[in-house]
């Protein structure tokens, strides 16, 4: 696929070809030298499990158990590669498709579905995982990440040289988000403040129905230098390359070197969400082209070629995937409807007479129905 503009595949850092053959890179190969067979199998396992979860969630939506689902299908390498490069103390601001990154942060994947089932706007405690809540307004959270990194600077947790202390902040966003003012302002604010931020753009080539060519004439990574932000284009379906470029950017952020823009060139193999129909705007030939570049197949080919994928491992992984699917289904079915009056909770951190009065009125109204009590009139 040799194109010009934002969809060119030239200039990508690649450590693994689509056939699963290793490529040497003078700058980035050393960053994965310590990843032994166990580590690679771990990444493979992560990717397989996240895809199984993703497929299960799609099925649950089709069965009416979720209102909506945003698939991460095809973006597993970008998410697992970057996520596995993070240190525990690093802090992540995801968009809403970062299920793989959530997995690397120890978020129970079942809890991601609380938002999509309509029983919670969040679903996990960000402080438990250094993984912020999903943000649905495109690009807004890149500024939150920038501010958070400015706070980290003020806390003196950048450039101490202590690998257990120095922390970086990562914001994930997509190709469509790069058109938003907030993302451009995040580049401005992080640059002038030298904030320890990694702006990780997954260019999956489609913002719902709009190709990246509707967002930009140039590769998205080219925007970084104009802001004074170092940038790198990486093969987003190459888990090793994604790991390596993220590790480099994290190191720059933690050491006080400021922000980095990463463009991970990948492909949204599924629909934007379960409400979308990609057949209306893109060709099956294009989808087939990218199916041949599946990020999971690529790592699998490497492990097979290097004799590091035993039948026992695969059998066990199959069983674990099935168990995960079953656990997710059971967890979703067990998610009860929240108490009606809970909609009045946490609007304000302090007391609020207006909310209190409306809650009291509503409870009285509910109690007024025959048989009384919450939800009695439904």
């Amino acid at each position, binding site marked *: 696929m040799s194109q010009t503009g934002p969809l060119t595949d030239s200039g990508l850092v690649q450590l693994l070809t689509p056939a699963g053959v290793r490529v040497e890179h003078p700058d980035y190969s050393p960053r994965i030298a310590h990843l032994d067979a166990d580590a690679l199998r771990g990444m493979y396992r992560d990717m397989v499990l996240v895809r199984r979860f993703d497929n299960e969630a799609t099925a649950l939506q089709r069965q009416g158990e979720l209102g909506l689902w945003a698939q991460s299908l095809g973006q597993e390498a970008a998410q697992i590669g970057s996520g596995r490069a993070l240190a525990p103390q690093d802090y992540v601001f995801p968009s809403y498709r970062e299920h793989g990154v959530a997995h690397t942060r120890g978020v129970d994947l079942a809890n991601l579905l609380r938002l999509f089932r309509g029983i*919670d*706007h*969040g679903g996990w*405690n*960000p*402080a438990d995982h250094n993984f*912020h*809540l999903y*943000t649905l*307004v495109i690009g*807004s*959270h*890149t*500024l*939150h*990440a*920038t*501010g*958070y*990194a*400015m*706070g*980290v600077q*003020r*806390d003196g947790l950048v450039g101490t040289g202590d690998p257990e202390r120095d922390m970086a902040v990562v914001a994930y966003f997509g190709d469509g988000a790069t058109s938003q*003012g*907030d993302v451009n*302002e*995040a580049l*401005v*604010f992080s640059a*002038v403040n030298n904030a320890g931020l990694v702006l990780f753009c997954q260019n999956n080539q489609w913002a719902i129905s709009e190709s990246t060519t509707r967002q930009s004439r140039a590769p998205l990574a080219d925007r970084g230098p104009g802001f004074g932000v170092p940038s790198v284009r990486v093969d987003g379906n190459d888990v090793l390359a994604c790991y390596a470029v993220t590790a480099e950017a994290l190191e720059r952020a933690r050491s006080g070197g400021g922000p980095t823009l990463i463009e991970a060139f990948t492909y949204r193999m599924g629909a934007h969400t379960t409400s979308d129909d990609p057949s209306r705007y893109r060709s099956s030939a294009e989808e087939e082209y990218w199916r041949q570049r599946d990020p999971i197949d690529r790592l699998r080919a490497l492990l097979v070629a290097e004799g590091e994928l035993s039948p026992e491992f695969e059998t066990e992984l199959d069983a674990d995937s099935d168990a995960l699917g079953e656990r997710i289904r059971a967890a979703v079915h067990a998610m009860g409807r929240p108490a009606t009056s809970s909609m009045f*909770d*946490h*609007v*304000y*951190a*302090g*007391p*609020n*007479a*207006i*909310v209190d009065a409306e809650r009291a009125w509503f409870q009285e109204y509910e109690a007024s129905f025959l048989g009384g009590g919450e939800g009695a009139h439904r």
Partner: protein
Amino acid sequence: MSTTTGTQRITLAKAINLGLRRALESDPKVLLMGEDIGALGGVFRVTDGLYKDFGSERVVDTPLAESGIIGTAIGLALRGYRSVCEIQFDGFIYPAFDQITTQLSRMHYRSQGRLSLPVVIRVPYGGGIGAIEHHSESPEVLFAHTAGLRVVSPSTPADAYVMIQQAVASPDPVLFFEPKGRYWDKGDVDLDAPLVDSTGETGLDRAVVVRPGTDLTLVGYGPTVGTCLKVADAAAAEGTSIEVIDLRTLSPLDAVTVAASVRRTGRCVVVHEAPVLYGTGAEVAARITEECFYHLQAPVLRVGGFHIPYPVSKLEHEYLPSLDRILDAVDRSLAY
């Protein structure tokens, strides 16, 4: 930079300046952010001297991007910092509208109380200063209509000094609307004023009766309170006793204090610079009608801006709720 104490006669702008200074001194996590608030001291000089005394890490000149200011303040709040953001003029808040309404207002709610965003947004607002377009607006109800935000506006130096400190201490985001036409009005300020009363209440969610009366309740906030007091003087000369209420807070709205007054007076006129259509006056009128219908001698009347963009400055004194227009409404109410 020792703290000033005792009672001083100072301007409203200076009162906010001293309140900010007090907040910076008492909590190292407090930051000021905004355009030109550093060496310049802000276009209205409200942050004058603070950059020199607290440094560029705590009094931060930001890039010229309002969404960026509020968005990064949110991130700083998630990291434990309390940012006080200055929006240079009312009409320039709109680039930040998305961050304020879709992010700042609901983080506590959507995180089920796990995340608080104690961010203050200072907004010089209102007209009457002969300014050019976008420098005289009153957008406060756009934010009062958004759950999760508090919206307050002081009318006196004494209130401004205390309320800005209370806003900084609030666990919730606060839109702090400063009546820029009153920045240079002077008043006595007790610089040792406590931020909470003996019961631990701030009163930041309370309206106050600033002048008692018996015949009609006149409700204003921010820049219109002073005008309402002049109206009360003029009416008194004609034998009419007007009770003046300073709302002080639009969210939450203290309709209880207004209703208690109207139950005594039977008449109510609400005054603000913002357009009356869907305005604070409409909300007050609806609540008063619901809560004290049988005490009303006349419909609740509103005096405020028209359903037009803020006019050119040569016409703004006809647009703004002047003493004569308010007196006209008072007369119409009394004539019922």
